[in-house]
């Protein structure tokens, strides 16, 4: 078997184990929180009678281990269960009508939105950060290099909501160019959707750029002292060509790793930005679901988040192997 293929299979198997562990941890954690779905949803109206009725309906009266095993056997067959949130009162007379919203139905549109935002952000941020990094390496220690460093470090050090509000202030309130409300919905024309997604995407770009840009710069500078770069320079190759042609290909591995890490962050960690721009992404759904203890949805979200990290890390590792002939053809 090709060594790269072997690595992929090994890593995927390990990923499944990780997902299993994550599901146990999340299930235990949600169960340890005070209150359950019945109490959370009834709020002030949580009479013991009503709480019991809901618990019975949803099977929350079963011991946690039984519930976990039920969930697990469903999940192994690809059934993530039904969302409590939409199931609870759907029946007319209190009896189960059988019509329920599955977790997959509830998550799918939100996940699609999250991927859209992550995609738009990545499309802006990755080329921007890498270019900036290359230029900073090219003009290192110049005013440009310092300004780029200071600028990106400032934006990464500010809390996300602060960056978001600053952008809203300048781009939506003072100069009304972009909408501050990103309430996209299914069936919205692509151009409108893109326009509404632009402000959150720019906010996230500012948040993730520093990391990628500095890694690009550092990885390239690291190589600049190598003999083969010196050789290229002595040959009379132009500095920009030295970097792009000779240094960058060998610096790709660490850059790809950082990019992957940031992409995973864009999928899993942007709830604050979603709240500020009212973007209906998966982060909002996740927080809402934790609030009402909707365990099936929380579980599914966590699995998605964990899977995003596992898959992107795996992709990063594969790409760094592919980009490095020494690793591609191990002796």
């Amino acid at each position, binding site marked *: 078997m090709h060594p790269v293929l072997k690595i992929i299979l090994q890593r995927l198997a390990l990923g499944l184990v990780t997902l299993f562990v994550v599901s146990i941890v999340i299930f235990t954690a949600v169960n340890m929180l005070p209150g359950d779905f019945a109490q959370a949803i009834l709020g*002030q109206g949580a009479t013991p009678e009503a709480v019991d009725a809901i618990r019975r309906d949803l099977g929350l009266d079963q011991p946690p281990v039984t519930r976990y095993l039920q969930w697990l056997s469903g999940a192994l067959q690809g059934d993530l269960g039904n969302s409590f*949130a939409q199931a609870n009162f759907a029946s*007319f007379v209190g009896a189960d009508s059988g019509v329920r919203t599955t977790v997959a139905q509830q998550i799918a*549109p939100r996940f699609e939105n999250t991927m859209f935002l992550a995609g738009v952000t990545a499309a802006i941020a990755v080329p921007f950060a890498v270019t900036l990094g290359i230029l900073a390496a090219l003009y290192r220690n110049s005013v440009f290099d310092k300004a780029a460093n200071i600028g990106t470090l400032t934006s990464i050090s500010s809390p996300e909501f602060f960056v978001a509000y600053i952008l809203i202030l300048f781009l*939506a*309130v003072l100069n009304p160019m972009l909408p501050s409300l990103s*309430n996209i919905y299914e069936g919205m024309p692509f151009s409108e959707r893109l326009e509404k997604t632009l402000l959150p995407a720019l906010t996230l770009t500012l948040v993730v750029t520093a990391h990628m840009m500095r890694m690009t710069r550092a990885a390239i500078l690291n190589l600049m002292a190598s003999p083969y770069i010196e050789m290229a320079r002595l040959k009379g190759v132009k500095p920009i060509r030295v970097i792009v042609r000779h240094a960058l290909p060998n610096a790709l591995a660490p850059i790809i790793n950082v990019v992957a890490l940031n992409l995973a962050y864009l999928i899993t960690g942007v709830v604050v930005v979603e709240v500020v721009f*009212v973007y209906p992404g998966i982060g909002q759904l996740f927080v809402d679901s934790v609030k009402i203890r909707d365990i099936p949805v929380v579980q599914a979200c966590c699995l998605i988040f964990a899977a995003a990290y596992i898959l992107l890390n795996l992709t990063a590792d594969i790409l760094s192997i592919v980009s490095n002939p020494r690793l591609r053809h191990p002796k």
Partner: protein
Amino acid sequence: MTRISRRGLLTTGAAAGVLAASGLPLRAQAKKGGRLRAGLNGANTSDSWDGRTHSDLFMIASAQGAVFDSLTEIKADGTLVGELATDWEASSDAKTWTFNLRQGVTFHNGKPFGADDVLESLQMHVAEGAKSAAKPIVSAISEMKKTGDHQVQFTLEAGNADFPYLLSDYHILMYPAGQIEEAIAKGIGTGLYQVQAFEPGVRMVATRFPNHYKGEEAGWFDEIEYIAINDSTARMNALLTGQVDAINRIDFKTEALLRANPMIRIQEVTGNQHYTFPMLTNVAPFNDVNVRRALKYGVNRQEMVDKILQGHGLAASDTPIGPANPYYHAEMEPLTYDPDKAKFYLKEAGLTSLDIDLNVSDAAFNGAVDAAQLYQASAKSGGININVVQEPADGYWSNVWLKKPFCASYFSGRATEDWMFATAYEAGVPWNDSQWDSEDSARFQELLLTARAELDSNKRREQYHEMQQILRDDGGVIIPMFANYVQAVSNKVASPDKVGNLWQMDNARMAERWWMA
């Protein structure tokens, strides 16, 4: 603009105050057309068209406020009118009620509305295993029958003069009989607007239903869009950048910014929403009326209004009956902060000082923890040492409220006195958060039942005034303040001179009552 005191505003008529604040012409002519976009909070992923579950603004405004109708409706000025009922009649003991239903009404799917729909829709609330917040209202009906295609008759277990008011409850919506599941899934009602899109916790879009029975008097917009914006800064941004035309619940800290914008007006109404500190009157030391009186004199109510509500409220005197209630006792002598009296009543109770725990969380109401700390500071000079115990917001309603002897809570208030008392002050009801019963005041419980069946409004007024006094003097719930409803509206949208004060956003009916300027 001269400053109008909030109390003055109430006595001189809220309409005049709102008028002065909004600067709108006195008789603006409503016109058809346009699209209302509102940014509202209180939306959840668990939202649905099932009226039994509604508890917060987003769904109340979407369901009762636009897509569904109830039998009766409370107008902005507090009067009761028929919605799907045209008129009603009570027997002299207020026990048997006959409602005539509106003819020629159809649901959005074309099904005509009639008596069967009423009976089946009410049945939803009392069905076995059903979880409805309106269950107590409907279960007080011992018999309901169809007396004609468009007439129903209800027999109550005990006389209740307010029964038609109760039917205006936002949980009690009319669904098409035999299609209720479908109606809940798709949002099929008889309301002014027909659902086009609904994503729980995200948005709701509806268009004007043609040939509606409210015809030319209401429902001016062609289309409405309600956007769920739970974050108050995001709501304000959306309004400031013109992406929505109205928002509810503005953040008082940024109120000045909104006021400075000439394109936006602030609507503020004082209603029945009140913040409370209930004590369990069956637990020592709160079973002693003198201890309760000492605690009543230890609160600086005006300070709480000024600091917790930033002035957007009204000091209350431990009664839940507010300015939006018909028999609100406005002339009753208010309770004021008086540490000497607090000491006096402690002495009456045989104590020199009192040490108690007060369990609070901001889940009870915004600023509850700060309010408790203010209370702690003001009560100290009356010899009362309050230990503020901060509880987690998660599970507050199930673990603290009704369980701890002294905690914080809130009520949005009710349209009628009896409704409010029956919710939280009648002996034995589940939300009686002070365990207030005839051992505490036999007179109160007796008046509660007499006034309920009393059809003579002068007699009722006397009875309800006396009950408010009893609560002020002996009651087990400290109610320091009524909290105003404060919302902001773009001047692109016009609203009537008088907006409702029972609930936010013109009693959640802005889709029905407002229009494009």
